[in-house]
Structure formats: structure tokens, C-alpha cells
């Protein structure tokens, strides 16, 4: 236990040294934001606006909503700048905020039943409602169209995944995060993350059978 505490203290101290040493690091920019440097915050926004918007878009499959939620993510970062602690990487911190916002939005949608046609295609045995996603059996014109159709299909398939499988799959396969980073962002063990990603890939293979 003492060893772990020592390691954690050394890690934090190393991060603080990094903040002092590298003025362009995320932590240094957030430190500057904390004391009122608007340019530093603009630099942070410039670094993360596209990845965060993309991540939320892949989670929600709604571009306008994703932009709004990305903005909300930066608002929360700005508001909580004084309470921010340099224990983990800033990217972990901002992805965690974005994940929470996206999951919250998905749950709101589920409550409001905003997904159209869901009620029409609910299974007769009273189970979970199924998305209307019929396979397109018509022959495709050329390769570009085939690729576009595949991308659309996989995006729709991802958006039908349960949120506990969707978030780790996107972070791993779309954002290219490591298992360690994903476990920190989602605050779940690495083993659970690996298991969920495997399950998510299995679901996607089943849904994408026509395209593989």
C-alpha cells in the first residue's frame, strides 16, 4: 500500500514537473486557463474540438447534437478548471466528460422515445425494441458507392449497440485509445473493457454479415 502511495505521489510529482517544464502541455494550458488566460483555453479547444465532436457524433449519430454536446464539454472543462487535478492525462479527463454527456443524451432519447419507427418494429414477445435496419439487397453501382453504403451500415450498426458496448468500441476502434486509457475514461477495469469490446465486435459482425 505504501509502495502504491509512493508510486502515485511520484506520478503526480512527475506530472507537475511536466506542467512546469512544458508550457504547451495540456496541463500547462489548463493551469493558464485557471488564472484567466483565454488564449490558453482557446488552444485547448483547438486541440480537442475535432476529436471530441467526432467521438460524440459516433456515440449519438447526430451531428448537430454532437456539436452542442462538444461545446457543453468545453464549458464544463472551463467551469471546473479551478478544481482540476493533474492526476491523469487531460485527454482522459475531457473524454470522460464527453462520454458522460453522450450517455446522458442517449438515455434522454430513450426516455423520450425519439427513435422513430421503434414502436412499429418492437418484437412480439415484448422484448427490446429493434431498430429498423433492413438489408439492402439491390446490386450496387460501383466501389465508391459500396464503400459509402458499408460506412453507413456500420455507423447505423454502432448506433444500435447498447451504450456500455458502444463507448469502449468507439474509443478503441474509432479513436484508437489504448485499453488503459479506455479503462480510465470509463472508470472500469481493463478486463471488463476487453470483454465488452469483444462482445461489441461480435454484435457488429452479426449485424454486418451482408457487408463482410
Amino acid at each position: 500500500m505504501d509502495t502504491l502511495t509512493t508510486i502515485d505521489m511520484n506520478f503526480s510529482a512527475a506530472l507537475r514537473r511536466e506542467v512546469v517544464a512544458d508550457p504547451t502541455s495540456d496541463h500547462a494550458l489548463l493551469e493558464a486557463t485557471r488564472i484567466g488566460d483565454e488564449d490558453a483555453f482557446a488552444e485547448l479547444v483547438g486541440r480537442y474540438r475535432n476529436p471530441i465532436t467526432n467521438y460524440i457524433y459516433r456515440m449519438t449519430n447526430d451531428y448537430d447534437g454532437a456539436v452542442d454536446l462538444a461545446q457543453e464539454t468545453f464549458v464544463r472543462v472551463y467551469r471546473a478548471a479551478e478544481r482540476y487535478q493533474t492526476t491523469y492525462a487531460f485527454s482522459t479527463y475531457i473524454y470522460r466528460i464527453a462520454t458522460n454527456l453522450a450517455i446522458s443524451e442517449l438515455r434522454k432519447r430513450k426516455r423520450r422515445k425519439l427513435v422513430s419507427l421503434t414502436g412499429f418494429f418492437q418484437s412480439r414477445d415484448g422484448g427490446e425494441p429493434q431498430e429498423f435496419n433492413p438489408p439492402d439487397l439491390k446490386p450496387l453501382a460501383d466501389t465508391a458507392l459500396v464503400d459509402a453504403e458499408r460506412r453507413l451500415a456500420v455507423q447505423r450498426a454502432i448506433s444500435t449497440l447498447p451504450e456500455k458496448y458502444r463507448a469502449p468500441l468507439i474509443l478503441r476502434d474509432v479513436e484508437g485509445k489504448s485499453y488503459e486509457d479506455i479503462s480510465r475514461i470509463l472508470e472500469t477495469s481493463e478486463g471488463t473493457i476487453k470483454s465488452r469490446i469483444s462482445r461489441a465486435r461480435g454484435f457488429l459482425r452479426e449485424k454486418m454479415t451482408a457487408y463482410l
Partner: protein
Amino acid sequence: MRNMNCRNIQREIEEAGSADLLSASAISHLEACVACETLSRRQTRLQAIISSLGTVEAPGDFDFRLRARLAGEGRGRRRSLPFANLSFGLRFAAVAAMLLLIGSAFLLVSFRGRPNNPAVAGGGKQITSQPTAPDSPANPIVVPESVRPDKSQVANAPKKNELNGTPKRRLNSELATYRKSERIGTRDMSSTGARVMKRDDQLAESYPTAAFPINASYQSHKVSVDNGRGTSRTISLPSVSFGSQRTLSQTPFPLIASARDAW
């Protein structure tokens, strides 16, 4: 054994996501196992499709909209109430606590505003509690009208020798009952005249048995006699006990007279 190996390899394929990341043993297994090879191929194609999704970029006015939003939130936060950021439950609890506080304050004010002594409100009916002996002439008792017995009660009152101090006890018990049942308060009556009942006249008239309570004390009773020429004599009468200890007959001089002057 082969199935066990396939299960492990399939788990590795699903975790790796792409055939490029498989171990050497898994790759050699794929060459011999069609099912695992098919799975690996499909997984690799799926991974390629996911990777081809590309990156969606934020709109060009993202920074501008963000700055406007931060500025708007700053103004809104300055205008908002201090508890506006609380959750619904906490806000509800705060409102309930405020209502409870206001209700308690209202009740307190209404209780204070009410005349706490109905005797005072009724016009001069007041009980003045005295710490000293209530029946001494120096400490007059103001008896409330409701407690004071009328003439018929006095007429039916037991005689002095029948019950020792019964009317006084009754008075005390009635006063105690009155104090228990009603709210007792005090009021400064120093500026207003109060009805004074003295033992010698009113009390003796209405409470004949209480004029000289038999169990008052063992002090002797002193009588001052004036001979009409300005000379007075005080006669001290010893207390009489109806027990067996002190009686007049046991005293050698029943009347102890102390002459201040020639008698």
C-alpha cells in the same frame, strides 16, 4: 483439444480486432483452421470498415459559439439565485425548510401576540405569586374572582375545630388547578391599585377558620390592651396544641403578662 484451442484463438482474434495484431501461434492456427480463418478475415474487414469512417470535424464557428456560450453563462450565473445550481431534490428540501421556518415563525408570533393571561384580559383578575408566606398581612393575596368562594360557600365551610385548615388547602388546590389549567403570567401592577384583602377583616369574615390557623405555628399570640389613659399592656397567650404536649392547664401561669406599665 482442438475446440479449446479454437476458443482461445477466437478470443484473441476478437480482442486484437485485426489479423495484423495476432500472435505467431494464432497465425499458424489460422492456416489450419477454416472457421478461425473465416472469423479472422471477417473481423479484419469489419475493422477496416470502422477505420474508414473517418473523422467528423467541428464546424468553423465552433470557437465563436463557445465563447458566446461562456459569456452568456457567465451573465446568467451572476443573475441566478445562489441555489439555482442545486439538484431538484436539494431545491425541494430547501423550499420545504424555508416554508417550515416561516410557519414556525408565524406560530411563534401568533402565540406571543395572544393575551397569555385570560385573568388580565378579563379585567383585574390576576394572581400574584409571592415567595413569602401568602397569608401574612405584609404580603397580601389578590385572589381571582373565580377562585374566591362566595357567601354560601363560606356559610357551608367547616368550622375551625372540625378540619384543620381545609379552606386554605382548598384554596391552594384550586389555585394549583387554576395554574395548571390556565396559562399563568405576570404583569406589572405597581402603578395600579389592587384589591387588598387583610386577614383581620375580609379574610376573617370570609374564612373564619383561616383567620387564625390552628396549625400556623407554636408562636404565642400577643394581645395588646389599652386602659384608656394611653397606657397599654401586652398579653402573650401561649399557643394551644390539641395534642398532648402543651395545654393551658399544664402551664403554671396560663396568662403570661408583661406589663410595660403599671396595670
